[in-house]
Structures are given as structure tokens and as C-alpha cells.
């Protein structure tokens, strides 16, 4: 429904807009009230289907969100009357009917009310560690994003029935195993929030890396992840890493269009047409990073965002402050030691202090068997060797990198660089 598959008649457009803007809020609240994920989702789906007919007949209501809320609640009541298996069914029914009998104004859909808490509950349920990572990702996109199962399936390059089963299974586990619908207690919260951020960043990277598949749908993943990041900033404004992740995604995404040049060739950061960078995304990203830093709780997303910010803010590639970037990678490595971060540090040091210093840091990584098939390591090695004047060594490293490349655009670029050596 969100994919723009419908012609742009006003009713379809209004339904699509309501689906995008209101669905997660209505669903999150109804899950709490009905006490059943699947039932609430079915009821919300019914409500959107009913909206198409009703709005075409009666006109689009003044407050589409309120209309959908009421319709979904009534559908939930109908479904609860028929389904006797829901736990505490009588209480749920009584509560829903009490809410339905209230003729007062529907609660407004803005933040700062208990409705926000429901979306937060929903995020923590969808990202629960007792669910498999692919299920967490799919469920989060399905419940909190505006994506249909078919769109999620296309974005992750799986068949729609496979993705459908994955989502159904996850919802059944939530119901059968009683995965709670709440924000975790204080002592669990930091850990569980890290888990939520990991899911959101994974969604973003899946869209950003675009190792295959439909570019357009992939871009939608980036947009969904950014929207989830912004939602988390509103729901958990005291957590610095929430702001750090939001900043990081915005700063990466600002360069999405510049990563491929008009001929379809991959453009590395220093070759990108900077006029293609999205200035408003950069401004927003930098503002969010500043906000994060003011909270004075450093973390890995903030450090990564700070690195990206330094790369973006340099007036041209030569003026990039590589020394400071190398330092930030050092801080990142202390916080979360990983060979990939070490590789990035080596590249930054190579640019700050010359290729010999970079190669000295890279050397130990080349012996790591876990990284043997890691294309960026071979590509970085080739680059440093080339700059150090070792053309033969660089050629061998480029060949290894080319053999490991899974992406046509990337491979073409490595071949071009290899050719330039000769």
C-alpha cells in the first residue's frame, strides 16, 4: 500500500498517507488493548481495507487517524467475539467496548502521550532477543514501518511466502511464549536498547550496501531505518547512542546518490560529486550528532557518526582531517575491538601519516584467517602499496580484491584502478 502502486486519486492517496503515518500508532495501541499481536494486526488491516470503500463513499474524514483507530477497534471487538482462544478475552472485550462507548475526542496522534509508549513497547517486542535476527528485522519493518510483506521480501531478496512464514512464525512465538509487550526494566534496558539499535542499523545497511536487488526498494529500507531512528530519538531522547545512530544514518544517506556516477560506476568518497550530497540531510545529521555529544555518553554510533561528519565537512578530500579520524577509530577500537575497525584505522593513519605508517598497522590483519576473504582489506592493502610505490604488490592485491568482489559496480572500479597501475 505504501509503494505508490495505486493511481494518484485523492482517496487512494489519503489511505496511503494514513497507512504510512498512522498505522504503527494505531497498531501499537490496539496490540496493548486487545492483548494479541495477530488479532490487532488483522483488525488494523480490515480497517484500512474498509477505509478505501468508506472514504470513497463518504469522503476522506477530517481526522483519518481517528477514523482508522475507531474502525480497527470495532473490528478487533468483532474478532474477539469470534475468537475464544485469546487470553483474558472477557477483560479485553470489556476494555475495548468501554473505549468504543466513549464519545469523547480521540487522543491526538502527536507525541508526548501514552500512545508513544505503545510504539516503544512494540519496538522492544519486535526486537526481542528470543526471536531470530531476520525475524526481528522483518517484524520491525512490518509493524513499525509502512512496508508490506511483499515489499520486505523483495528488499531482502527472498520469496514472499518465505517472508510471510517468517513473520507469522515470529508472531506465533510472541503469543505462545508470552514475549512481553513492554519497555524492559531499567536493569535490562541498556542491553535491550543496544539490540534495538542493531536491528535498525542492520535495516539501514541492508538498504545502503545494496549488494543486489531492486535499488528502489533498497532505498526504501534506508528511509524506513532513518524514520525508525528519528522515532527512537523522540521516544528515548535521553540516550546518546539513539541520537548517534540517527546522525550516522542521515550522514551516510546524504551521500546515497553520489556513490554511483552517471555511468553507473562506483564512486569512492574522494571521487564523489559533492554537489550531489543532500545538504539538508547533512545539516540534520550534524545537529543530531551535536545533540548526542551534549549528552556526554560516548558510544560507537556517535564515534562512527563523528568520523563520517569529519569526512563530509572537509571542503575537499585533500583537506580531510585524517589524523583526527584515525584517533576516533582508535577510540572505537578500544570500545569495540574488531578487525574491521582496525582496518579503517590503518587506512586513516595511511592518509594522515603516509602509506608506510598505514601498512605497518595493516600488516597484522593480513595474517588473520578470518579476514582472508574480506574484499575491503585486500582493496585497502592494494591502495596503500600503490601509494608506497610498490606497483607489483599493489597489482597482486587488486587481483585478490577483484576475485572477492560480489558487486559489479565495485568490481569495475577495482579493475579500473588495477589498469591505472600499468
Amino acid at each position: 500500500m505504501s509503494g505508490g502502486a495505486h493511481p494518484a486519486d485523492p482517496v487512494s492517496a489519503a489511505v496511503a498517507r494514513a497507512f504510512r503515518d498512522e498505522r504503527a500508532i494505531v497498531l501499537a495501541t490496539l496490540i496493548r488493548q486487545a492483548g494479541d499481536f495477530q488479532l490487532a494486526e488483522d483488525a488494523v488491516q480490515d480497517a484500512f481495507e474498509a477505509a478505501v470503500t468508506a472514504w470513497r463513499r463518504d469522503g476522506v474524514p477530517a481526522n483519518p487517524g481517528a477514523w482508522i483507530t475507531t474502525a480497527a477497534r470495532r473490528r478487533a471487538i468483532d474478532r474477539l467475539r469470534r475468537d475464544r482462544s485469546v487470553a483474558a478475552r472477557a477483560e479485553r472485550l470489556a476494555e475495548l467496548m468501554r473505549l468504543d462507548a466513549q464519545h469523547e475526542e480521540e487522543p491526538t496522534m502527536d507525541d508526548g502521550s501514552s500512545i508513544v509508549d505503545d510504539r516503544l513497547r512494540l519496538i522492544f517486542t519486535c526486537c526481542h532477543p528470543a526471536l531470530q535476527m531476520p525475524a526481528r528485522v522483518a517484524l520491525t519493518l512490518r509493524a513499525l514501518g509502512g512496508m508490506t510483506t511483499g515489499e520486505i521480501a523483495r528488499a531482502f531478496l527472498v520469496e514472499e511466502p518465505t517472508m510471510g512464514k517468517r513473520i507469522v512464525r515470529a508472531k506465533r512465538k510472541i503469543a505462545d511464549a508470552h514475549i512481553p509487550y513492554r519497555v524492559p526494566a531499567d536493569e535490562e534496558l541498556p542491553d535491550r536498547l543496544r539490540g534495538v539499535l542493531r536491528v535498525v542499523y542492520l535495516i539501514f545497511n541492508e538498504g545502503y550496501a545494496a549488494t543486489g536487488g531492486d535499488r528502489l526498494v533498497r532505498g526504501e529500507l534506508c528511509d524506513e531505518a532513518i524514520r525508525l531512528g528519528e522515532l527512537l530519538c523522540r521516544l528515548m531522547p535521553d540516550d546518546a547512542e539513539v541520537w548517534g545512530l540517527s546522525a550516522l544514518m542521515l550522514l551516510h544517506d546524504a551521500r546515497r546518490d553520489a556513490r554511483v556516477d552517471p555511468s553507473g560506476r562506483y564512486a569512492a568518497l574522494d571521487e564523489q560529486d559533492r554537489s550531489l550530497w543532500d545538504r539538508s540531510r547533512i545539516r540534520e545529521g550534524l545537529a543530531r550528532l551535536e545533540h548526542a555529544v551534549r549528552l556526554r555518553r560516548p558510544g560507537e554510533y556517535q564515534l562512527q557518526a563523528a568520523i563520517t561528519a569529519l569526512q563530509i565537512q572537509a571542503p575537499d578530500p585533500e583537506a580531510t582531517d585524517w589524523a583526527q579520524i584515525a584517533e576516533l577509530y582508535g577510540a572505537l577500537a578500544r570500545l569495540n575491538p574488531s578487525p574491521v575497525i582496525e582496518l579503517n584505522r590503518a587506512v586513516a593513519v595511511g592518509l594522515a601519516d603516509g602509506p608506510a605508517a598505514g601498512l605497518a598497522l595493516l600488516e597484522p590483519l593480513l595474517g588473520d584467517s578470518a579476514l582472508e576473504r574480506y574484499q575491503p582489506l585486500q582493496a585497502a592493502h592494494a591502495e596503500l602499496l600503490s601509494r608506497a610505490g610498490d606497483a607489483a604488490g599493489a597489482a597482486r592485491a587488486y587481483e585478490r580484491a577483484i576475485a572477492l568482489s560480489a558487486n559489479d559496480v565495485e568490481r569495475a572500479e577495482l579493475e579500473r584502478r588495477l589498469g591505472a597501475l600499468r
Partner: protein
Amino acid sequence: MSQYMLLVYQEEVDPTEQAEREAELPLYVEFFRSLREAGLLVGVQRLHSTESATTVRVRGGETEITDGPFAVTKEFLAGYYIVDCADLDEALKQAARFPGARYGTVEVRPVMPVEQWVKVAREAGADVPDQAVEDLA
């Protein structure tokens, strides 16, 4: 008298075959009743399918939570606990407190409420009297 635990193993089958099995609930009710009348039955509970399972291990002080049932390895079933918990989070927390979780594995499986068991059997076409809910409890 000695106590014995009877462990029930089953393959998960396709929905049609599963429905045929569910419809056999009266046979189970009869079996429980005969055990109870003979004074042999201590307790019986049906578990939800392995799809609802979560496994817990504690290694190096860190709790590892994995979606899915315990995979067959050299470890063998050594015992069981039945705990009343508010939700899965509490059950996982208690599982991680189990001292053996530091070297073994704890599979956390929700118990299927008797009402649900009866409902599934009725949906599969079994004629189950309301009394069965008490018999199975």
C-alpha cells in the same frame, strides 16, 4: 514406589496430519483418567511446538539467548523445572540463574494451556466434553 518421568518425543508434521492427531484428544483424556484412577499420575503437561522454544546458555557470565529448540548434541536430558512466570523474560531470567546453564543448555518451552489444547482438538473435529479440561489439568 519410585518416580519416573515419561518423555514424549514427536516429529513435527504437516497441518493435515497434525489435525488428525489433535482429533485424537479423547484417547489421551482416557489415558490420563486411567492413570489417575490407578493413583499413578503425578502430573502431565503439553508443550507448545519447538517453534516457540528459546535456548539459554550462560558462558563467561554472559547470558546467550537463541531462538529455537536445543539442537541435538552429546548433551542429554538431565532434568526439568516447571516454573510459573509472568512472561518469557522472567522465564529466561530464571533459566539463566540455573547453575547448570554455565556448562549445559536450558531449553525454555511454554506449556500449552489446557483450554488451548481442547480448542485445537475441537477445531480438528474431535468431540471433547467440557469435563476434559478438568481431566487434563
